[in-house]
């Protein structure tokens, strides 16, 4: 089983959710994160002094899958790419075990 972590533009989230749904990924977890990266951060002004907020509001998705890793990556890249700096990153790592709390099932069946 693999964990696919994707840090994307928040504004792309709804679209990505749709795309993932279409390819059969209906379960995942996401949260608000802040990114420090290439993209210029949001410019704000307060009482005459310009400053940047120092971060970009982003959404991080965590998707655990037992197969179709490449398809998921492709789906994310296709949906979230704008070509401008700051489109985000995808990280893949290994998951050793998975448990469904409701049933206690383990491993791949717990994912379905």
């Amino acid at each position, binding site marked *: 089983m693999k964990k696919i972590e994707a840090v994307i533009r928040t504004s792309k989230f709804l679209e990505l959710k749709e795309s993932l749904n279409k390819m059969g990924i209906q379960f995942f977890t996401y949260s608000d994160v802040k990114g420090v990266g290439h993209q210029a951060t949001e410019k704000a*002004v307060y009482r005459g002094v310009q400053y940047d907020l120092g971060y970009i509001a982003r959404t991080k998705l965590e998707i655990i899958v037992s197969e179709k890793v490449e398809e998921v990556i492709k789906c994310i890249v296709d949906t979230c790419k704008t070509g401008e700096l700051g489109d985000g990153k995808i990280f893949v790592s290994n998951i050793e075990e998975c448990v469904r709390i409701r049933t206690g099932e383990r491993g791949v069946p717990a994912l379905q």
Partner: protein
Amino acid sequence: MTTAVLDTVEAAATIIDTIKTVSAIPVDTLVSATLVNATQAQVESISLTSSNIWMMICTALVFIMNLGFASVESGLARSKNTTNILFKNTITPAIGIIIFSLWGLNLMYPGANYAEKIYGFAGFGLEEPLIDGKLDLSYNSGYTYWTNFLFQAMFAATAATIVSGAVAERIKITSYMIFTFIIIGVIYPIVGMWGWGGGWLNVIGGDLPSFYDFAGSTIVHSVGGWAALAGVIVLGPRIGKYVDGKIIPIPGHSMPLATIGVFLLWLGWFGFNGGSVLSADPARTSLVLATTSLSAAAGAIGALITAYVYLKTLDLSMILNGILGGLVGITAGADLMSPNESILIGLISGSVVVFAVVFFDKIKVDDPVGATSVHLVCGILGTLFVGILGDKGFGGSAEGAGFSQLITQLIGITAVAAFVFPVSYIVFTIISKTVGLRVSAKEEIEGLDIAEHGMKAYNIDMDKEY
């Protein structure tokens, strides 16, 4: 009262009968002086009633300025210090009202014995409420003793509350309360006595006209402003505000709160300036309301234009400060200005506020809410306008705009500065050296809400855990 009149009428009727017998004149067309006198007395009483209603409303409006200050100040500060700011602004009017009932009013209005002096005191406590089971109404033709007390107490709280915004986010709550006690209990009533309590500013000396400050650009706002400045200097800037010579903006946590505050302050100013007429005189009160609102509106426009041209932004916090600047700027001469003069005063004040905020930031005077820019700078400006604009022939006690009036205004401004700033500075320094003025760095970073009150201001959407 109506029954009293009817009784009188009956008495009068008997008299008129008597007259009938001694004269051929058809006396039923005549009327007794008694009746007219009764009517006359009733008219006096209604006149007092009307004026008193207005003054009570103005008192309520000035009261709500405390909520205005609480909202603006907490909106423009960070959420980790919100409970603390609300606490300060809640306890300030409480302290003010109590002190004014115990001695403040009698220190500010010591009576004719101390006319033209620099200090006077008429003793502790308010007068007994009842004279032979009835209130003494002879106090004033415009309002009762009690209305006066409450109106004055609300004013005092306002002066004190100006300080709270400037020293926000780092002052110890107990030290703040000590200073509030001193400014309301000593500093403000003394300056107030100079100008409004019959003190020396009414007879500055020589051929100079008396100092004119209609509703307190100097006597209220600059007093608060000078004290705020002293506090800010003794305290020093907030951690993280000036780093490596750079100004780091620390944005306020809630623009809705700040906006609510400014609207409430504008509303409150209807009472602050409108009540300073000290009667419901329709001509003066309505003129004052018009000039006040025109200057506030022009303050918004002035700040908008200045911020746009000079800072290239449409910064809401600047518009809000511009409105307050316009309000403070018109306060000294709200009963003297024409509409166009009011607009001019607003435009200048609103514009100056923007520069002042930027200026204070440049010289590292860290005032989170711009209290010094609004109340001190525009307070001085507004007091000077009385020497430059406005027809003094109307209502006011001033001589009319002109060089000698301007000199008087400058003397008043300087005198207040020379008293309030050093005294506040010394008081803040003493507090700092004894009980301590500033929270520890750790507490400041953690936020005063947890550190001083053990209480967060917001728990939004955290509640599913409980």
